[in-house]
């Protein structure tokens, strides 16, 4: 399926949308398509909003954000996010704030169809005083009280991966993040991949499959679909882009100029990739192949 069709069919105004990937495999191509299709009133959830949600906020797609760390990793603040929170530009942004551990547990509870999960975390932090979703449960085995976070059930989760077969059986290596948990918690799942491979490639190494086709709504072949984030074994993180974003996004005009040129100004990721061919080549990964293992019996 094309990205245009996948977003058109499975991402709706007002949805709770999750686009995960912890620095690795962030589905930027899907984010750009959501901006092009002018989705509105989205609630976005993600551990690290990163540049992808900063762009969606600036584009006016977002009503609310659920997150745990809103910065430009290794660089500084997320300017569009701060403008929205501090000044209501382009529109007020409601926030619901956790920690990384809390977000991971929310996805796991959702994926497990449980109302909540407990943790030993959270005594003493003020986060529990500003977010009423942190609640306590008493252990039935002792007098201990534990803080809990509620399950999160996204309407749609979008993940990018190295490869999948045409049925959506999806394999990832390198950093796993929370993509598996987010996908299982979600009503709909869109998988975008660097490469669609024959099922026999997936079946040659079943332990690498993190998302089974049975929960996948759409599979989209989208090479370079995670730029400026990285794909282990395919291309490196574009750290220069992350540094430049600090300048690009500092004022609304600069950010609008970026969206006009790199999002609205291109029809799809293929055109985007062509537009930065040299950069893509510079980011190409070198080869460090793993030792294959034997699945015979």
């Amino acid at each position: 399926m094309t990205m245009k069709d996948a977003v058109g069919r499975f991402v709706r105004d007002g949805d709770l949308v999750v686009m995960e990937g912890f620095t690795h495999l962030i589905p930027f191509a899907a984010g750009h398509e959501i901006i092009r299709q002018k989705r509105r009133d989205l609630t976005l959830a993600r551990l690290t909003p990163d540049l992808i949600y900063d762009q969606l906020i600036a584009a006016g797609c977002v009503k609310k954000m659920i997150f745990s760390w809103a910065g430009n990793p290794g660089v500084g603040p997320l300017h569009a996010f701060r403008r929205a929170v501090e000044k209501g530009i382009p529109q007020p942004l409601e926030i619901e704030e956790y920690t990384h551990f809390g977000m991971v547990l929310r996805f796991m509870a959702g994926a497990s169809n449980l109302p909540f999960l407990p943790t030993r975390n959270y005594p003493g932090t003020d986060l529990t005083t500003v977010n009423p979703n942190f609640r306590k449960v008493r252990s039935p085995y002792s007098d201990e009280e534990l803080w809990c976070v509620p399950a999160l059930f996204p309407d749609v989760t979008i993940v990018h991966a190295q490869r999948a077969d045409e049925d959506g059986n999806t394999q990832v290596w390198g950093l796993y993040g929370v993509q598996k948990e987010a996908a299982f918690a979600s009503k709909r799942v869109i998988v975008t991949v660097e490469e669609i491979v024959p099922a026999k490639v997936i079946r040659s190494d079943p332990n690498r499959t993190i998302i089974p086709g049975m929960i996948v709504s759409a599979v989209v072949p989208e090479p370079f679909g995670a730029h400026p984030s990285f794909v282990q074994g395919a291309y490196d993180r574009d750290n220069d882009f992350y540094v430049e974003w600090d300048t690009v996004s500092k004022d609304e005009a600069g950010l609008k100029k970026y969206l006009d040129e790199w999002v609205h100004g291109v029809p799809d990721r293929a055109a985007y990739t062509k537009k930065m061919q040299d950069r893509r080549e510079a980011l190409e990964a070198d080869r460090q192949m793993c030792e294959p293992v034997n699945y015979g019996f």
Partner: protein
Amino acid sequence: MADYTTSELMVSRAAKELKSGDVVFVGIGVPSLAVNLAYRMHAKDLCMIYESGAVGCVPTRLPISIGDPCLVTGSLAVVPMLDVFNLYLQGGKIDVGFLGGAQVDRFGNINSTVIGDYRKPKVRLPGSGGACEIAALAKRVVITISNSKRTLPEKVDFVTSPGYLRGGREREALGLQGGPDLVITDMGVYHFDPQTRELVLESLHPGITLETIRDNTGWPLKTAPTLKETPEPSAEEIRIVRDELDPQGIFLRSRAG
């Protein structure tokens, strides 16, 4: 005497807190450099864990983010974030966690969420990320931060990551173990009074006077009976940091304290 930046001094001092066999939860910047310095100098068996899920990393370049691909290639294990937090951190496998923040207060509480009121923030900061759980669940926490009335207030605007709260036994009473153990600033090094759990200045960096540091701390500062001078980084340490760890000076020139 070797020429060095304050950041290099902080990195060298932080590295001395790590010993072979330590399992260390690493952040980017000074902590990452300190851990890599310790690894090269004296802590060969030290195991680096990043919250991104990379365990036993051997980065061949300076990681720019905690999810840098160089942390994955050649590491001993790469695990789901659920395992990082449930099994490694909450499971009690982390010996030392490094934390920074916008504010650290008199009792080691850290703020990385907001300056001002949470609902109407003067400055909206990134938030906890994994900091709150590291502060709550690591066996030991080492904090690095710059030294000013703004960054070291008597009380933080918002407790993102719990230290000793209002001091004394309050942290234990809430069921938390561990806690902050050392604070390294660009002016000095602090430990915590075992009773009151208040920051106590234990050493001044070369060239920094007690008066200067008092003028740059948000409360009447307690000092150790005998104030030491923070040891300078050795020539070898400086060489490793400059030639091997941060050759482009990404963290230690641009951000020199």
